[in-house]
């Protein structure tokens, strides 16, 4: 199972790299930006639901040993509603969970949520995972509940700014790195492609015409 997980992660990484390279060399008529908008309740439900199903599938794949050794429905029942301080090593609480939180944050940003709303949605997604999926193996952790969305948002903002700066450079290597830092810009749900074209009005005054994809 570990070999399968490693192969799966390698495949996903190669796919991101290949797509980044293809996009980097494609003709680009637009800028990468973030366009904030309001969302209906149905949209929010669909996004949270999609991420929930993905994490339900990915969790046993990425933590197979823990899932097999410590997971049971008895544990699920005992851990329901419990919150504890976990004793994990700092690499989990300070690096891995915040990085996962940053990708959650960037996913919601790509879908048109503002920074503060992306943080709130990341918190909801992270809390749903902690309280309803991970309790199959261990109780919900205070550090994970807080640091995944909050430190994730801080790291996410840094990745957002860095990736936009790289993606808007006229350099294929910079674009590849930009997409790798922020994989959400590769997918169909990214709403921030803004086309800027010069225009002249009927009074012969120059201007810029902006079109954004939704």
């Amino acid at each position, binding site marked *: 199972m570990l070999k399968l997980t490693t192969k799966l992660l390698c495949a996903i990484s190669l796919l991101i790299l290949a797509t980044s390279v293809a996009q980097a060399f494609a003709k680009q008529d637009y800028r990468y930006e973030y366009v904030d908008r309001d969302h209906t309740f149905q949209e929010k439900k669909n996004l949270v639901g999609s991420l929930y199903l993905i994490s339900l599938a990915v969790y046993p794949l990425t933590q197979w040993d823990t899932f097999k050794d410590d997971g049971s429905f008895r544990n699920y029942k005992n851990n329901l509603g419990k919150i504890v301080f976990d*004793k*994990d090593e700092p*690499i989990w609480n300070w690096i891995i969970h915040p990085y996962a939180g940053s990708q959650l944050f960037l996913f919601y940003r790509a879908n048109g949520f503002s920074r*503060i709303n992306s943080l709130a949605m990341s918190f909801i997604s992270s809390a749903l995972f902690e309280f309803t999926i991970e309790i199959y193996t261990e109780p919900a952790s205070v550090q994970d509940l807080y640091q995944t969305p909050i430190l994730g948002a801080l790291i996410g903002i840094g990745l957002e700014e860095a990736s936009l700066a790289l993606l808007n450079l006229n350099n294929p290597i910079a674009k590849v790195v930009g997409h790798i830092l922020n994989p959400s810009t590769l997918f169909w749900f990214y709403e921030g492609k803004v086309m800027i074209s010069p225009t002249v009005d009927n009074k012969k005054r120059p201007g810029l015409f902006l079109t954004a994809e939704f």
Partner: protein
Amino acid sequence: MNKFLILLTTATFILVYSNVLSARPLFLGMEKEQLVLRGGVNIVGTKAFTGKQSTTFPGAGVNTQFGHLWKKWEVIISSYAYFGEIKDIEFQFDDQAISGQGKISSVSFGPLLRYYTKFSYNPKYSFYTTLGPIWSLESIKLYNTIDEPKKSSDNDDWLTNHKITYESFGLFFSLGLHERTKRKEEHPLFYELAYTYQRAHHISYVDITNRAKVKVLNHQQTRQFITGHTIYLSVGITIF
């Protein structure tokens, strides 16, 4: 320490009482309540009492605060963390005394209530005060013990592959200065002096041989008196 606490409490009471009717918002262009995320760095000094002895040690770390801000009041969920080095720490665990020196990491979480006053030495800043309960986890990784100061392979293995953690509960109090700007997007600064008093209630002995999956070998309610007084000096900004 008691006189310092009385002075802090009196100063806070005077600040709050004299501003109870003031209605000046923190962000001058603020029309309605809003969510705010702040981050900063801390320098820390802690005095810990364990059993029969006390020890003082410095540390450095980070803090984050996620709050819901009204005009003068704010409800915050915060985290204060630091890393440091501790000498002469002593624990009673399973009727055995373990003492030595090592690295300590501490992370605290808590819901806090903050009040922004109209007082300031400078119109660009406001004094604020914060109060609330705090829960924390301290992890200590010893790198030598007093009982076995000489290196041996068994002792090295024990020290490298194990850590002691204890969970505490206590109180958080702070006084600070927050920059007044028109909007939070201008990333205003804050400076803060905070104090926490915590008392340990649960101690665990953890095997960290496998960093990916640690194992709690033993845990118990503490029968010993472990308390800590910590002073934080923080500076940070509003992120968004």
